[in-house]
């Protein structure tokens, strides 16, 4: 059962310099209980995808076309009050730099309570307190945190509290957008374990967004690789890692150092991501593609094509040899 299906999503931002197409024709699906990863470099559109799912994009952002089917219902055309019902109790999100997610003048416990009250207005104060204590248990926080203000907590504690907040309304799907980027490696490991534990215990679906491909490898069942607003490769994580088809995916893997094995010189990609303002059709990766040949047709429109079991790759790379 697919908890989420995204079909041909397009999202753009209106800016002084023009329309920025941040999300181009993105399609993927997430099953119940599955952990799905989105990887790509900064500015490739992964956060925009996350925001679109909850329709939280900035004021100048607009979903121009596509469908987002959550739990069987398309949520793209919904009005504000209907969306508010889905937010948090259906889909919740752990933001990048989640430490700033807290209102500095309100106690932590009260902020979590607020979310619960919004979606379950009939629960009593005691029930809510009990629930919060349970959540804190899951993420490893002491219950005294409830009465503290955000600035009294360390970064790691705030992060755990954010996860507790995200779980507070029993959502079916959680989006984690680079939740550990600002933390040190030790805490990062702990948080990742928490998330995995939570997911397994509660049977939630998870969309994990990161630029760190190593984390994606560890955390996800299926994944998508994004570049310049499009998905260039999509499929089971294991498959993609053992058998990457797209040139970009290969470059990503090759540029990550490995602790085991021989010392290998890292290969990095030349050039920069393209400007998303120009509405170019055709392969946006072509200028940087190390496998570019004369036969590579730059004006060929990008389209996903199946190359393995559930493994899709952009059409350009599909025809390439290993």
């Amino acid at each position, binding site marked *: 059962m697919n908890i989420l299906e995204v079909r041909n999503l397009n999202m753009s931002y*209106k*800016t*002084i310099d023009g329309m920025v197409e941040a999300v181009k024709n993105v399609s993927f699906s997430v099953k119940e209980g599955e952990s799905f990863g989105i990887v790509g470099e900064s500015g490739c559109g992964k956060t925009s995808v996350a925001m679109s799912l909850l329709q939280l994009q*900035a*004021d*100048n952002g607009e979903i121009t076309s596509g469908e987002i089917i959550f739990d069987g219902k398309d949520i793209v055309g919904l009005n504000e009050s209907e969306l508010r019902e889905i937010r948090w109790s259906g889909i919740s999100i752990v933001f990048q730099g989640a430490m700033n997610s807290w209102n500095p003048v309100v106690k932590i416990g009260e902020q979590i309570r607020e979310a619960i009250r919004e979606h379950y207005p009939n629960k009593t104060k005691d029930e809510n307190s009990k629930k919060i204590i349970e959540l804190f248990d899951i993420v490893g926080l002491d219950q005294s945190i409830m009465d503290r203000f955000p600035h009294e907590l360390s970064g790691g504690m705030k992060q755990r509290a954010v996860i507790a907040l995200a779980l507070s309304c029993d959502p079916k799907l959680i989006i984690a957008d680079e939740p550990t980027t600002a933390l040190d490696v030790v805490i990062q490991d702990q948080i990742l374990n928490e998330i995995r534990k939570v997911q397994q215990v509660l049977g939630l679906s998870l969309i994990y967004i990161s630029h760190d491909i190593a984390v994606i490898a560890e955390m996800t069942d299926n994944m998508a690789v994004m570049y310049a607003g499009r998905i260039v490769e999509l499929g089971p994580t294991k498959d993609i890692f053992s058998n990457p088809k797209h040139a970009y995916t290969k470059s990503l893997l090759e540029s990550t150092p490995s602790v085991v094995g021989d010392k290998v010189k890292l290969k990095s990609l030349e050039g920069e991501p393209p400007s998303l303002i120009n509405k170019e059709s055709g392969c946006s990766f072509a200028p940087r593609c190390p496998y570019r040949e004369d036969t590579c047709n730059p004006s060929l429109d990008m389209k996903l094509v199946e190359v393995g079991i559930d493994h899709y790759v952009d059409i350009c790379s599909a025809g390439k040899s290993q």
Partner: protein
Amino acid sequence: MKDQKDISKQIRREALKKNWTLFKQSKLGMIGLYIVIFFFFLSILQPILFATGLWNKGVYDPVVGYSEQFQEFLVVECPTEYPTEKYDSITDCPGRNEINVRTLFYSDAEVGDTIIQNLQPAPPSPKHILGTDSLGRDIFSQIMEGSQVAFILGLLSATLGVGISTLLGTIAAFFGGKVDAYLMRQSDLILMLPTLPLLFIISAFAELQVWHLAVVLGTIGGLGGSVITIKSQALQVKVKPFVDSARITGGSQMNILFSHVLPNVAPLALLFMVFSVTGAIASESVLSFLGLLNIDMSWGLMIYLAQVEGFIFSGMKFWWLILPAGLSVTFLTGGFYLVGRGLDEVFNPRLRNR
């Protein structure tokens, strides 16, 4: 090195262009700018009109001009009790084209005669777009003169004030210690003094002219609370890493002060300047309104004269004596304030719309 200078010039030019585009985006800023430009236009219009001879100085000079408007008046006698058939209240008599026989001292006219008299103050007419005041001076010309005064005074005092506070603020931030403590206490002292009474005192022992007032306002403003704000801004810059690196690479104190700290404090100073102008214009108007200023013509003075001559409570009958001046002060100060808000949006990205 020549290349470097060219490059930095180019960067500065592009930065200016970018700032201008951002400013244009701010609706408030643009409205304010239009208003300010309108009044600026008014202030330069007057000398042009005189210079090109389109306006006869004898007639249109705001201070000594005199315009005769002769008109026929019907001589009436105003009753002692109201209301009567003809008049509802005491302000209705004498009417527009009538004159009370009791005010005619030098004439033998009787009730029912028509005489020709000079109409002052005269309502707006093609010759005088906003009418004349009780001395026969053209109101529109006065407005333009007042505009000149406002601009000169406002900009002068604002520049002086901002100059002083920026200098003191940066010095306080930079040298710290006793210097800082002294400057902060000085600001406290100035803040404690009530502004208006202080201005009264000063005007009581010195006949203030526009220049004097500008200097006084500028100094008081410059030494006051703005020093504290600039100092805290300069402090933020001081702890930034690039200042340390500048020091390491051998920059002298002066050099660091001018090329690093000042440019970062400049936006805030500019903002202060714009808001100071509004304060200066308002202060001048208030002082003129109370008759404490030795000035030939300004908007505040126009209202002072109107009040002293008793036209305020005549309401709409003599509106041209009161409304243009009051509205001018309101709109020009408002315009500068809006420009300040627009600049705020340029310098503070969080305030922009997108």
